[in-house]
């Protein structure tokens, strides 16, 4: 109960952190606008400053969701379950940003909106697994918490297999488009944006866990009122 109580009340750092995050988001376009153009790709390269941090948060969400699910299956503590659920929603959010900004950049650089490259395919499938997780949690009814946890675990174990299979499939059927390696010098705006996205991730996760804890508390209160 004390831990639930911890989840319900927002920590002291939350509001200042939210304010800083808002300011950083407001400042980021200015910072990106002032960075020099990349020689080959020009303006479109600037998508990277949002695309890559979003992709990293997508990955982070996957790790948080998987670890929280494994801990939930071991301990059955509702707290881990809430974290897993919140992380899955963030996977879908940041994954959507990644999957929308990626093709915008690819169209300019590779000339195609989509290619079955290993990163693209594994991102898409992981995103689909996260969407499936949310569908299970929403429509699965009783027992969907464990079902979701199992799905998250299997989803994590699946990633290396997707990676290997797509990589091999692609190397025996090479495409003419060149998959460019990531530029080496990202500079200040990239780390600035990464930190902004990370802050947003932590804030949203915390807020979502709080919402779920409040719901659980409300349910408990209803039940005690009935008795």
């Amino acid at each position, binding site marked *: 109960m004390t831990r639930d109580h911890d989840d319900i009340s927002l920590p002291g750092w939350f509001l200042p952190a939210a304010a800083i995050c808002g300011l950083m988001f407001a400042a980021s376009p200015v910072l990106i606008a002032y960075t020099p153009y990349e020689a080959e790709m020009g303006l479109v390269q600037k998508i990277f400053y949002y695309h890559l941090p979003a992709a990293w948060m997508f990955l982070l969400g996957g790790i948080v969701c998987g670890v929280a699910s494994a801990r939930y299956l071991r301990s059955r503590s509702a707290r881990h379950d809430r974290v897993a659920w919140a992380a899955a929603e963030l996977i879908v959010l940041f994954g959507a940003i990644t999957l929308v900004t990626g093709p915008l950049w690819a169209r300019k650089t590779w000339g195609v909106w989509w290619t079955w490259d290993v990163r693209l395919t594994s991102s898409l499938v992981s995103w689909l697994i996260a969407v*499936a997780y949310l569908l299970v949690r929403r429509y699965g009814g009783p027992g969907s918490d464990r079902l979701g946890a199992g799905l998250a675990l299997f989803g994590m174990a*699946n990633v290396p297999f997707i990676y290997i299979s797509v990589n091999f499939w692609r190397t025996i059927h090479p495409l003419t488009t060149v998959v460019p390696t990531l530029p080496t010098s990202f500079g200040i705006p990239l780390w600035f944006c990464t930190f902004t996205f990370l802050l947003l991730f932590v804030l949203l996760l915390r807020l979502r866990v709080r919402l779920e804890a409040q719901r659980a508390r409300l349910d408990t209160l209803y039940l005690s009122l009935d008795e």
Partner: protein
Amino acid sequence: MSFLRILWLILRKDLTVEIRSGEIALTALLFAVSCVLVFAFAFVRQGVPPDGAAAAVLWIAVLFAGTLALGRTFDRERQSETLRALLLAPAARPAVYAGKLAGIVALMLGIELLLVPLTAFLFQDPLFAHPVWLAAILLTGTLGFASVGTLFAAMLVRARSRDMLLPVLLYPISVPVIIASVQGTDALLQPEINVAVLRFWVTLLTCFDVVFVTLALWTFEALMTES
């Protein structure tokens, strides 16, 4: 009771029920045949099937029929409340999982026995040119799909809208199996088979089977325990 004995008893029970009623085998088989026919109508133009379509069509039909069979197998257990009895029995949970898995694999392999000749016939592809490799791909691919499918179908037994959720969960997770099986079968259809490529796909499928069967055996108890 030993692990193998429980496995055998559950497998024998499932096969006996199936031989007496024929419900799942016949329905899933007819569904798989209909799938192949639909693809034949869609793809074969002026009597000429497109190159290498047989591999894709075969595996799509196997996956669809497998999903149908998985859903119904556990639905039957739920309707007659026998799943509860199975879980109450003084038998190790992993053995129960292994028994159900063996039943599903046997059923799917039985369906494939008819499906492969039919696909080879309708798409005029030399699927039987290398029977040992074909058997290896069919066995490892089916086991990979069924290992995940059995676990999720078992977990979904009590969930609402389970018929809709099963494919939604199953297909993203089985992406590596789909890629490896289709590519492996496709490699069999080439005029000159590349043994290195075939060996790679069969090894990948075997690794997938080992990891996912182990993970399922390990998590089945935690996931199926009534809270």
